[in-house]
């Protein structure tokens, strides 16, 4: 599904190489986790894949179902089926959450040559999905993420994911700022979307999220590369011993 090959990325403004040859393949139906110390390039990877400005790809490729993501605009990547759940969801005063979601859903449908959803259809679908994430009507009416608590913001990300039904979901530190109950709720939302046709890349610092979203594969990222790949037990090893042992081992 997602094939990242030899990805090299530097910051556009500073001559600083962040990713130094990332190789990673996420198969449909699988959940891959990326762990790694601060500054290892995890978030950069998620931004580069989703098309944020400010990065320059100096080498490598990233294919989604055989299509080169790196040649596409951010919105084209979304329409192609890529979704990034933000670590820090952006507040947009003046744009209603509902308006935002309907605009997004219909923009993607249009880009894919599908019929747009009517207001009625949309309302029915969103109400059902919001309910399972404990998002009330009031939250849907409010401006996007404005005045939302940390947990509400992350739930709102998962709601967007549920509405947009992407093929490939990247979750960037979705557990940050969440208490245990909120994390469970978010994890349930993610698990409900697990599907044979959908891939997940879960970026996290901590093993605890992976207790709730069980990964098939765990990668350790350090200094812009994937340095070790293993099963779920790798996450436990990090939890118990930190990164030092692993980094020493691969050095």
């Amino acid at each position, binding site marked *: 599904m997602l094939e990242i090959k030899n990805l090299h990325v530097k910051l556009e403004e500073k001559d600083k190489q962040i990713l130094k040859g990332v190789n990673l393949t996420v198969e449909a139906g699988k959940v891959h986790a990326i762990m790694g110390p601060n500054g290892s390039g995890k978030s950069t990877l998620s931004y580069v894949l*989703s*098309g*944020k*400005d400010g990065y320059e790809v100096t080498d490598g490729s990233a294919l989604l179902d055989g299509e080169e993501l790196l040649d596409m*605009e*951010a*919105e084209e*990547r*979304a*329409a192609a089926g890529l*979704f*990034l759940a*933000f670590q820090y*969801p*952006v*507040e*947009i*005063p*003046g*744009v209603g959450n509902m*308006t*935002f979601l309907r*605009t*997004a*859903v219909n*923009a*993607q449908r249009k*880009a894919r040559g599908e019929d747009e959803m009517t207001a009625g259809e949309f309302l029915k679908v969103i109400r059902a999905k919001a309910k399972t994430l404990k998002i009330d009507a009031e939250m849907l009416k409010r*401006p*996007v993420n404005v005045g939302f608590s940390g947990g509400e913001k992350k739930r709102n990300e998962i709601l*967007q994911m549920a509405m*947009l039904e992407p093929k490939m979901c990247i979750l960037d530190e979705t557990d940050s700022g969440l208490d245990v109950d909120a994390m469970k709720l978010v994890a349930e939302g993610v698990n409900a979307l697990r599907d044979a046709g959908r891939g997940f890349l879960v970026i996290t610092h901590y093993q605890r999220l992976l207790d709730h979203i069980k990964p098939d594969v765990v990668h350790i990222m350090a200094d812009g590369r994937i340095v070790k790949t293993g099963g779920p037990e790798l996450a436990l090893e990090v939890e118990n011993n930190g990164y030092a042992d692993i980094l020493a081992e691969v050095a």
Partner: protein
Amino acid sequence: MPATNKMTQVKQDATQARLAGMDMPDGSAWATEARSAAATRTLEMGLPHGRDEYWKYTKPDTLVQSGVPAAAVFSSGDVPIWDEVDCLKVVFVDGAFDADASSDLTLEGLEIERLVEATAKDIHWAKDLYGVLEYRGQDAVQRPLASLNTAFATDGVVIRVTGQVSKPVHLVYLHKSETSDVILHHCIKLEDGAEMTLLETGPGAARLNKVMEVDIADTAKFHHVRVQGRDHERRAVTGIFTRLGTESTFKSFTLTMNGVLTRNECVIELTGDNAIAHVAGACVGDGRDFHHDDTVFITHDAVNCESRQVFKKVLRNGATGVFQGKILVKKDAQKTDGYQISQSLLLDDDSQFLAKPELEIYADDVICSHGSTTGAIDEEALFYLRSRGVSVGEATDLLVLAFLAEALEEIEDETLAEGIYERLEGWLARHASL
């Protein structure tokens, strides 16, 4: 009126030349007296000049000069705004009243006449209003184009509101002649407890000078929603002069689209306790041939009054926006609550926003806040929207509408606000971001 500054000979000559070429309309004795007094004060003040402090950011030349630069009539293809809203329509075509296109001028709760009819009568209530609030508005700052208007206005409407009016009065200004030079003057008097909504739409003329005096008695409410613009080359200078009595309300919103030069002045005097005055504006400008100026002066002269100014401008491709807003709180105007915000969203590096917010406060128990910002589109928000599949153009439009929202929220009536949103969406569609 402040003592006339030492006027330059050039300015004096220009003013005299302009006035010499104008005909004062006939009327009854009181009207002629009001007009003559206005002509005299125009001469004393002199018409605006580029070196005047109050015209520092907006060049007055083309508003002052005798000849009118031609303005092509532009057809946007939009359906008329508020088409489905039931209202009493008064239509002016290049300043000339069009009886066939207008509604029957009767409506329960108000009396409405054309200015020329009212000023022809020997006895008329408008005697106490025509030019009166305009003259009061000259108190702190000279506004010679408004007194020029009082002296030479060819028509307008005078409305006396005595009760609750069931539907809005809609003044429609059509522009059909490329060289029309129009001066309109309206007087509106709301008696105690009366309430009305006034709508104004259309470009009006190649050059329009419009003054509206609104006298709001105790507990009366005046709502005003205006859409000006469309024709790219038209010029307009407008002045609203209003005085508020105890517990009365004035709420005015203006949307401006297109127009090579627009100056909207609003002079508000809160003279009765607990009165509320809100004035808001949204403007969208594209290109070097767009210059928009909001100039507001609010005087608090009573206790516990609230005033609110909300002005938002979206500018691109070299468009210019100006805001000059002042709150003057007199010594006895305790418990004043004044708020002023002016913001611009610049969609590129070529556009500019010039703001001069001012507070002058003599009372010691007041809350007054003001802010002015200039910024670009929020890149983080733009990326967030795009990452959800929204195209960069559509995302920009969403953020533009979001930016304007605070000003549009000042429109109380939802149907009227929807009409404004539709207008803006139409404009955005014609001026696709990318």
